[in-house]
């Protein structure tokens, strides 16, 4: 296997609050290959966004801290870099797209001003060249009349347009890795599809590795090659996207799949979508053993005492569950 462009080993990011330590990300290991699209899936509060902020080293300090692990970008440990060196990496080698296109742009600066700032910051080119590069980027993300848009302000553009501009900004310096944190959540469905198509297209054309963070399995199925399922700060399952959808192993993944509506397997009258009973456990004082045990229909005594290790159950398919050995027993 070729060396991954981004390798995360044993990452733990904790928040030290007045009530205790919140283990937002706990011993997460994953990697992204060059030009690959990795999806990170999970419900709210499972540590997806904290993972992305950890990679950027933008975790809210002083309460949040990366307590353990290594994040390697082409072999270079990002956690060992100084803040100054890290600034050279942000936006240049790793860039990020945020969830809220409505508020991710500065309302008092024109679009062009914000794009040019990023380009000049990392490329050291003249203002004129940066302007040209910015216009080219806007054209690349299919914004009509880019020269005019450059002079406009964020409030004059729609949400979809603003997200295109965020994408233009993220790709402006040819990053090696792009982290997209729920890039389509705030957009309506038709725009979602356009934005995802645009991102996939750019990823293929520019060969950028993408980490797509989402709670939407449909989005993952469309855009990613590999998926990580996170639950309560831990990785519970990792597989190629087709494999995961065909043979989900972890009960949580199965629960997520069952809670999605299917067009062709319509529900009968009065039938409800299956939901996963219970709530995500508090990350303040996580229970010993498997963190999903409290909501799992198949939990046994072992599950509540011992933490299940990640085991490879198929080619490139890892699951952290005690009961994957007997899938028939787990399947409902």
């Amino acid at each position: 296997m070729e060396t991954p462009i981004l390798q995360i080993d044993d990452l733990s990011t904790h928040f030290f609050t007045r009530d205790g330590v919140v283990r937002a990300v706990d011993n997460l290991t994953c990697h992204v290959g060059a030009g690959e699209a990795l999806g990170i899936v999970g419900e709210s509060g499972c540590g997806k966004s904290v993972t992305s902020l950890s990679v950027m080293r933008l975790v809210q300090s002083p309460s949040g801290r990366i307590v353990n692990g290594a994040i390697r970008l082409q072999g270079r440990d990002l956690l060992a870099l100084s803040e100054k060196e890290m600034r050279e990496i942000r936006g240049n080698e790793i860039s990020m797209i945020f969830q809220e296109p409505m508020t991710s742009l500065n309302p008092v600066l024109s679009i062009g001003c914000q794009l040019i700032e990023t380009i000049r910051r990392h490329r050291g080119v003249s203002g004129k060249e940066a302007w040209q590069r910015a216009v080219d980027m806007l054209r690349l993300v299919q914004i009509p009349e880019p020269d005019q848009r450059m002079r406009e302000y964020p409030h004059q553009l729609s949400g979809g347009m603003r997200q295109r501009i965020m994408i233009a900004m993220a790709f402006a310096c040819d990053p090696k890795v792009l982290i997209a944190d729920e890039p389509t959540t705030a957009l309506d469905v038709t725009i979602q599809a356009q934005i995802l198509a645009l991102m996939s297209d750019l990823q293929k054309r520019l060969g950028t590795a993408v980490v797509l963070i989402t709670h939407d399995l449909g989005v993952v199925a469309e855009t990613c090659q590999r998926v990580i399922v996170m639950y309560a700060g831990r990785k519970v399952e990792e597989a190629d996207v087709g494999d995961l959808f065909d043979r989900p192993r972890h009960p949580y993944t199965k629960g997520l799949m069952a809670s999605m509506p299917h067009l062709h397997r319509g529900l009968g009258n009065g039938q409800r979508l299956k939901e996963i009973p219970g709530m995500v456990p508090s990350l303040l004082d996580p229970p010993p053993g498997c963190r999903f045990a409290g909501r799992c229909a198949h939990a046994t005594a072992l599950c509540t005492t011992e933490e299940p290790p990640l085991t490879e159950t198929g080619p490139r398919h890892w699951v952290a569950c005690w009961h994957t050995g007997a899938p028939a027993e787990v399947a409902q």
Partner: protein
Amino acid sequence: MAVTDTVSLPAARSTAPTKGRLARFARFVRRHPNIAIGALILTLIVACSALAPLIAPYDPDAINPAERLKPPSAAHLFGTDAFGRDVLSRVIWGGRISLVVGLTVALFSVGIGLAIGLVAGFSRIADAVLMRVMDAMMAIPGILLAIALVALTTASIETVVFALVIPEIPRVVRLVRAMVLSLREQPFVDAARAVGTRFHMILIRHIMPNTVAPLIVQATFICAFAILGEAYLSFLGVGLPPPTSTWGSVIAEGRKVFGLAVWVVLFPGLFLGFTVLSINLIGDGLRDILDPKLSRRQ
């Protein structure tokens, strides 16, 4: 009228681009009538004060006992005061002091307040220290400070400006700090950090411009308030010493003869009122323009 005067001036120079400029100017006036009116009044008053040596008909301090307390006439448009001095000349000259005080107080309090507010909004330790200092400064009444300063030093324009700036700074600091505290949590600040923007650049390029619009509005109010404040101080006799005329001192002297000669109080009062009104009109208009969400830029 004066509006046509100002636009006919560039029209004389060239013809082709002026048509567009003229149209744009007309559109601006239509859209922001309060700025246009405020700017017109303020320009006239500033011009009067700036050209005081040329347009003032008499020496503002020349005493003429024969002409005491004369009502407005062709010789003395605004009448004369108890010493026979021409009120019009005194008002024109007095405007210089009042306007300079208003402008410098606004500049200094906003400049200093902005710097302190930005630091306080971004550093917790600095915040704790600075805000306590600001609380202490806020507790000082401006008038008492001015009286104390005049007692300690000589009455001068610097003393008056200083006395008016000190109580104004904490207000600006609080405004800026509150804005910074909410702005620093905005996603665009995270987004700026995520593209590798340096800390001071975030502060200067991303946070500061967002505070400017409310600050300019605040500056116009401070300016108006300082002009009034200078008048209070002069009225109380702790401003600039006589015979220097300021609007406040002319009103203060006129107070004694109010029953006999109302014009001595009326005209400087009108100038004072119109100046403050025009500055407030401009402030309101600027607020509408400077907030990009409110403006309908094309």
